[in-house]
């Protein structure tokens, strides 16, 4: 009734505003990225194997000199639900990286080609080495970058996002950064060493523009443009952050069907159990009232 409706309204507002708040809290003043179409969006979304392989190629050729993927292992490249390289291909990829091993019998650490069980080696031995080599900037490891970045959608879009299952703000952001390099508008001065990026919070990004058209060769006919590279590597990084997405959504569908069936049965069970109480209260063998202390 009125009270219930008010309460329901209040509860919905509460939940949505509080969550709105969460998303608003990560607000930075940069322009919001455009929402791309991702193959892995939505309840039946899955990764596109071809896109992930292209994305890996972009990572390998354009990003891996500075950005690590230390939480990923080479064997993950041949796992189901990912780029799905064959095991021999994954072994070959692994051997292309130098991995630190040791100590040997002389007590020294040494470099050797990667094996399939190894994790991706970091491009720099530590943060200080990275900063020293790159003039002060620290390229973040990208293992979970697609989940560590996002942007505020604002009211009321974040409410719709819960229904449309929008979880791709990370890849949208990454793609936007990669295509967002442009000349600074008139009157804007950048700190030394920084470049202007339309979508980076504060607009001054330390990373030099990493991609140009034609830089990475695609052998499957996909256009070799910065926009495409951005999408492919963003999709790859989403897989790197969330390798179980395909399995999660598949299991989710099964769980949903099961829960709908079970909840439906429970609903009819409840109705049947309560039938006589509601419609033939005179037949009920009621419980005697409990002997509570009188207030």
């Amino acid at each position: 009734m009125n009270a219930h409706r008010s309460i329901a309204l209040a509860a919905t507002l509460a939940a949505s505003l509080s969550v709105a708040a969460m998303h608003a809290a990560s607000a930075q003043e940069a322009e919001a990225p455009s929402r791309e179409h991702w193959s892995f969006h939505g309840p039946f979304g899955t990764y596109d194997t071809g896109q992930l392989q292209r994305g890996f190629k972009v990572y390998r050729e354009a990003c891996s000199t500075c950005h690590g993927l230390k939480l990923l292992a080479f064997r993950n490249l041949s796992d189901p639900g990912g780029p799905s390289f064959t095991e021999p291909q994954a072994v070959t990829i692994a051997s292309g990286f130098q991995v630190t091993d040791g100590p040997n019998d002389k007590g020294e650490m040494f470099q050797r080609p990667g094996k399939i069980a190894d994790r991706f080696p970091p491009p720099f031995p530590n943060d200080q080495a990275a900063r020293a080599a790159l003039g002060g900037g620290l390229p973040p490891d990208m293992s979970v970058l697609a989940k560590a970045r996002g942007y505020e959608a604002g009211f009321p879009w974040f409410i719709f996002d819960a229904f449309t299952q929008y979880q791709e703000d990370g890849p949208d952001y990454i793609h936007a950064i990669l295509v967002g390099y442009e000349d600074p508008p008139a009157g804007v001065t950048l700190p030394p060493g920084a470049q202007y990026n339309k979508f980076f919070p504060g607009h001054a990004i330390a990373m030099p523009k990493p991609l140009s058209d034609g830089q990475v060769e695609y052998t499957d006919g996909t256009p070799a443009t910065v926009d495409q590279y951005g999408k492919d590597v963003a999709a790859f990084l989403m897989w790197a952050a969330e390798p179980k997405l395909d399995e999660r959504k598949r299991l989710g569908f099964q769980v949903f069907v099961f829960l709908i069936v079970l909840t439906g049965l429970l609903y009819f069970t409840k109705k049947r159990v309560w039938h006589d109480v509601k419609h033939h209260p005179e037949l009920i063998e009621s419980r005697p009232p409990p002997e509570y202390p009188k207030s």
Partner: protein
Amino acid sequence: MTTISAAEPSRRDFLYIATAAVGAVGAAATLAPLIGQMSPDASTIAAGAPVEVDLSPLAEGQIVQAFWRSQPIFIFHRTKQDIARAQAADWRTLRDPAPDSARVKAGHEQWLVVVGICTHLGCIPLPHQGNFDGWFCPCHGSQYDSAGRIRQGPAPLNLPLPPYQFVSDTKIRIGETAPANA
């Protein structure tokens, strides 16, 4: 409770039975990941992949210890005397009968590769000790010969043989057996 009219017992019972059955399926399905999460995870399984050992640094008579799947593996470069003594033993009378030929690979009799865990209660036996040119386990006194067979003491079985194959005359890969028609 409620007095139920006798008119529709079968429909009511079917509903309750169906609900209970679906609920039981759900409970079992919920249990599956809870139990499965204790099985070895992907990185553990990957770390248990075969390891290669280069045999060329081993002198005759030398025993080294490698690790495979967190288990110690003894690799024994047997001398001709070790081989002779192992072959001469009356293997049929042993507690765990096995001829020396069953303990090594054909054409590579000088190499003995066994799991270095005593089959009694799991200690690691000490090499080149005991009365049988093999190993002596200090925990309870088991003694193994130069083919890793139990000769004395409480252990019930010979030192186990891990799966392994020769990828060349001087290199073995522990954790993999050669394909049957190799």
